[in-house]
C-alpha cells in the first residue's frame, strides 16, 4: 500500500486542520465500514475493495440511529454508495448525497492514509 488516498474535494479545499489517527488500515475488512468517534461526532469510515477510504456521518437521517457504518457498500449507476441498514436509502460515498432524496446530504470528512494508519480530519468537507 504505497499510494495515499485522500478524498479529492478535501485536499482541494484545504480546510483540513487536525488529522486524527483512528485505526490501522488492516483493522477494516475490505468492502466494509467501521464506526469512529471523532470529538463530539460519530463518523462512518469505509474501506472499499480497491482500498479507497471514505468517511461520512454515521447518523442515518431517516432512522435517527447511528448505524451507517454497518450498511452495505455498493454502487448505483457507477457511484459508490452505502445503503442504510435500516430503510435502505443509498448515500453517495464521495458527496454524502442521498440518491433517493436530493434534499438530504450527509457530511463528508477528509480521510487519508499515513503509512498504515487511517486519519480523519475533524472538520467536514463542505460541498456546493
Amino acid at each position, binding site marked *: 500500500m504505497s499510494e495515499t488516498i485522500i478524498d479529492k474535494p478535501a485536499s482541494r479545499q484545504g480546510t483540513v486542520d487536525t488529522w486524527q489517527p483512528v485505526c490501522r488500515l488492516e*483493522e477494516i*475488512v475490505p468492502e466494509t465500514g*467501521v*464506526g469512529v468517534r471523532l470529538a463530539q461526532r460519530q463518523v462512518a469510515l469505509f474501506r472499499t475493495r480497491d482500498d479507497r477510504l471514505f468517511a461520512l456521518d454515521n447518523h*442515518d437521517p431517516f432512522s435517527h*440511529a*447511528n*448505524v451507517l457504518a*454497518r450498511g*452495505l457498500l455498493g454502487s448505483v449507476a457507477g457511484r459508490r454508495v452505502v445503503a442504510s441498514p435500516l430503510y435502505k436509502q443509498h448515500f453517495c460515498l464521495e458527496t454524502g448525497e442521498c440518491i433517493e432524496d436530493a434534499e438530504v446530504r450527509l457530511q463528508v470528512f477528509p480521510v487519508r492514509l499515513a503509512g498504515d494508519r487511517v486519519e480523519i480530519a475533524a472538520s467536514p468537507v463542505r460541498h456546493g
Partner: protein
Amino acid sequence: MNKQQLLLIGHGMVGQRFLEALVARDGLSRFDVTVLCGESRPAYDRVGLTRYFTERDADALSLTPSGFMEAHGITLKLDTRVSGIDRQARTVTTETGERLGYDRLVLATGSYPFVPPIDGNDRAGCFVYRTLEDLDAIIQAAEGARVGAVIGGGLLGLEAAKALHDLGLETHVVEFAPRLMAVQVDEMGGALLREKIEALGVTVHAGTGTQAITDGEQHRHRMVFGDRHLETDVIIFSAGIRPQDTLARACELTVGERGGVMIDDHCVTSDPAIQAIGEVALWSERVFGLVAPGYQMAECAADHLCGQGESGFQGADMSTKLKLMGVDVASIGDAHGSTPGSRSAVFLDQSAGVYKKAVVSACGKKLLGAVLVGDASDYGDLLQLCLNSIDLPGDPAALVAPAGAGAPLLGADALPDSAQICSCNNVSKGALCQAIDAGCTSVADLKSDTRAATTCGGCATLVKQVLDSELAKRGLEVNNHLCEHFAYSRQALYHLVRVEGIDSFDALLERYGEGDGCDLCKPTVASIFASCWNQYVLTPELAGLQDTNDYFLANMQRDGTYSVVPRVPGGEITPDKLITIGQVAKKYDLYTKITGGQRVDLFGARVDQLPAIWSELVAAGFESGHAYGKAMRTVKSCVGSTWCRYGVQDSVAMAIRLEERYRGLRSPHKIKLGVSGCTRECAEAQSKDIGVIATEKGWNLYVCGNGGMRPRHAELFASDLDDDQLLRTIDRFLMFYIRTADRLQRTSVWRESLEGGLEYLREVILDDSLGLADELEAQMAHIVDTYQCEWKTTLQDEEKLKRFRHFINDATPDNELAYVREREQRRPAYPHERIELVES
C-alpha cells in the same frame, strides 16, 4: 326513478357471473336484485369440485368475493328453494311460503345429474356428483369402504373415478358406450385413454349396461350386468346432466322436447319478462353443459337487461382440455371428423402413450377439429387455428407430428386481435393487449385484470405467450436481472455458482457481473453460497456481503440496537433454560417478548453486548436461532400425543427433528414450518411454508402457505407419509425452492409463479420428472452435515469478536441511545421523546 325488482333463481357459477356482469354495467342502478339460492353456500367453483377431496376446504372453492353482495346491495337468500312461479301475477313462491314480486326474472337453475332408470338406483350408498354436499356424503361413505364404482365414463365420470381412487378405494368405471369420453374423443383416443387410466389401477368396463343394483355378498351392492356382475360399496352416478327446468315447465314456459328452457339470442324465454342462462337454457336446440357458454349467456342476458350490446349469444365453442387422473385429454371442434369431405391426420405412439388427430377440411387448408390424448401441449395452438380459421401453415400432418420434427408452432403473433384466448371468460387477444397497454406486466396481473386463465386454466400457456410477445414488442421485456451488476436472475446465478463451483463474490463478479455489487446482489450471492457450500458466513471473503443482521448475527431494530433469539426447537423448553433466558434478559435489561414462532425475543442489545450475551446463552446450551437470516426460522408445534388427548402423533418430536435438520439453512427468503399432532391443527401449520399434520397413518404434508402480508393457505402435497418419506420429500422440496425461487420470494409467491402449478411441483418432487431428486437430497445432506452454530464459532475467534464494537477507536458504546420505560420494560425513545429527554 323507481328501481325494478329483479329476481335471480339459482346462485351457481353462471348466476354469480350474471351478477358480476350486471354490476359491471351499472345494472344495480336500475334493478333491486334478490337472489334465491337452493344451496347452503353462495356460488362455488363446480368445475374444480374434485379439488375438494384433497383440500377439504369449501372456502377455497368459493367464487363469491367476500362482501360482494353487501357492497352492491344485493339480497342473497341461501337455502331458499322456489316452489312456483306465477307469471300472471309476476310472483315467485318459495318452499317456505314466502312470495316475492318481480319485474324481471332470471332462471339460472342449472342442471341435475341424470340417474339412469335402474332398479335399485335409490339405494343408500348411491350418490351423484354435483354439489359439495354430494362430496361430503361420498367422503363419509368411503370411510370403511373398499370398492367404489362410477356409472358413466364421460368427463365428469372420470373426475369422480379420480376422487374415489384418491380416497383409497379400488375403483371401477362402468360405461355403456364402447369407449370412454365418447362425446369428445374418437375410438383410437378412447382406447389409449383407457389403457392409461387402467395403468393407474382403475378398472374400466366399457360397453357395459347396468341392469339392476341389488344387495351384494362381499360388499354393499351388486351391480348386475346381464350374466356378469360387480360388487362394490359405493356407487356414483355420472351419466350426464339434464336441465333443471321443473319450474319453467310448471309455469308453462316453452321447453324443448328433451328439456331445457327455450331462449333467443338475448336469453329471453317465451315470456319477455323471464330470461334463462346456463345449463337450464336451450339455445338453437342445444343445451350447453360447459361453464364457458354459460358465462357468455350471463353476459348477454346482462347486456339485454341494461340495454347494451345487441349482438347477443352466438353459440359457443365446446372444445375442452383437461387432465384426468394425470392424463392430458383435449378435444377441439369436429373431433369425430363428421364434416363431409373432411380428412384426418393421425399420430399414435403407444409406448409414449400419445395420440393426436387433426381433422382438416376437404381443401386441406383449414383445421376443423382435433383430439389429443397423453400430450395436450399443442391445444392452444390448434384451438386458435381452428377458431380463427387460420390457413394452415403447411402439411396437415405436421400438426400432429412429434415436436422437434419441424411441427409448426403457431406463435402468439400469428393470432388476430379478435382471437379468443380464454373461452371460459371470453377474453380476446385484443383485450389482453389492452390490459398490457394499461400496465399489466405479468400473468398474475392479466388474470386479475381480464380474468383470462382463471377458470379452467387451459389457456395459461397461451396467455403467457401473448404477454411475452407483446411485452417484447413494446420493448418492455420484463427483465428478472438481479440488479445492475448482474444481468442474470437469481436462479441463473445459483446455477452458475453451483456448476462452476464459484465461492467468492469477486470471482463471480469478474466472470458474470460488472461494477462493485450492491445491497441487492451481495446478500443474494452470500445466500446462494451458503445454500451451496454452507461455509461460515463471517469468513473475510463473505463478511462484506452480509446484510447487517447476518454480519452481527442479530436483528437490527429501529434504534440500531439488536434483538437476540436463541433457538428453541419445536417450542419445547426446559424450566432451567427458560430461567437462563430470563436471567440474561434481566442482566442486560433486555425488553422481552414471546414470538409467534414459539421462542423468546430479547430486544435492546447493543452491538458491543452481543458476544457477552451469547457467551452466557451458549454456555447454557442454546444455539443461534437464525432469526437474523433469510433462513429456516422455526418449526412451530402443538403438544401432540405427548400430552394432548386428541393427538395422534408426537408432533413435538417431529418438530424438533425437522428444526434440527434444517437449522441454519439459507434460502431466498425466510422459511417457517409447523407440525400439528391432529387435524385440529393447533400449530396452524397450514399457514406455513411447510405444514405437517398428523394422521392416523402418518403425516400429511402441506406446502407454500403464508401468514403475513399476503396470507395463503398451504396446499396438500402428499398424504400419509411415514417419517422418512416426510423428511425426504421436504428435503427435495426445500432444495428445489432454493434453486429456483427469485430473491426474496416466499414459497407462496414462488408457487404461484410456477407455470405448471402444484401438479408440476408434485411431478418434480414426488415423481422425479426432472431426474433431480437424488441431487436435491444430496445437497440437503451436505447442508445438514456441515451445520455449525454461527455464534459458537464466532465466540471462539478473537479476531471476529473485534467487530462487535460501536467505535473502532474507542471502547465506549453509542452514547446517543435513549430509552423510555413502558409496561415495566424499556423501549427506544421516539424522536419527540428524545428531545424532552435531552432537554431535561
